[in-house]
C-alpha cells in the first residue's frame, strides 16, 4: 500500500518555465513533508520541507505548497534550469512511537528541463 504517491513518473519542461511536481498522500497522521532531488549514482539531496501547520514554504526558486484537506503537496520550480534535471522524491514523515521520524517516500518524478 503506497502511502505517498507521485503519479507522474516523468515531466519535461522548457528552460525558464515553471516546473510543477505533485505528490499525494493517504495517511492524515503525516505532519512533515519534504522534497529531495536525486541525480544518478548520488544520494537524495534535501531541497525544501514544510510542516503541516503551514500551507506554503519558499526557498529561492523552490516553493512547496501543502493542501491538507486534499492530502496533496506540490513543488514549484521557477524558473526551471537544465541543472534541475533529476529525479524528485517527495517524502512524508510522522513521529514514530520511538520518538524518531520515519520517512515514507513517493515513487519519484523524473524532471527533464529542456534548454
Amino acid at each position, binding site marked *: 500500500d503506497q502511502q*505517498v504517491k507521485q503519479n507522474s513518473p516523468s515531466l519535461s519542461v522548457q528552460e525558464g518555465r515553471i516546473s510543477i511536481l505533485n505528490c499525494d498522500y493517504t495517511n492524515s497522521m503525516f505532519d512533515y513533508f*519534504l522534497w529531495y532531488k536525486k541525480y544518478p*549514482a*548520488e*544520494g537524495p539531496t534535501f531541497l525544501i520541507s514544510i510542516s503541516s501547520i503551514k500551507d506554503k514554504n519558499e526557498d529561492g526558486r523552490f516553493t512547496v505548497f501543502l493542501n491538507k484537506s486534499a492530502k496533496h503537496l506540490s513543488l514549484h520550480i521557477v524558473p526551471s534550469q537544465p541543472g534541475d534535471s533529476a529525479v524528485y522524491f517527495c517524502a512524508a514523515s510522522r513521529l514514530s512511537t*520511538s*520518538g*524518531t521520524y520515519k*520517512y*515514507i517516500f513517493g515513487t519519484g518524478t523524473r524532471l527533464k528541463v529542456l534548454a
Partner: protein
Amino acid sequence: AAGVIQSPRHLIKEKRETATLKCYPISRHDTVYWYQQGPGQDPQFLISFYEKMQSDKGSIPDRFSAQQFSDYHSELNMSSLELGDSALYFCASSSWTVKDIWRDTQYFGPGTRLTVL
C-alpha cells in the same frame, strides 16, 4: 562541512555471502537511518538508530542487522545474501537541534550499490 559518508560505494558479492556497509554521519548528528532502494523503486526504510540504540524498524529482513557505535557511525550487516538484495543502500543522518527542536531533516549519503551474483 562534510556530508554523510558511505563505504564502500560499490560492492559485489556472491549468493549466501555476507556484506558489511558502513555509514559515517554528519558531524554531531546523533541519528542514523538506513534505506534500501531497488531498481525503479522509492527508498524503503530499513532501520534507524538514535544515540546508539535502535529507534525504529522498517522492512529489514531478519538476515540483516545493524548497529550504531560510540562515534555514531553505523554498520549494516547482511548475511546469506540473496539475488533480491541487489539494490542501492542509503544511509541518512539527522540531529535534534535547538532550531528544529521538534523536527529532524535527514541528509543522505551517496549510497552503496550492492550487486549479488
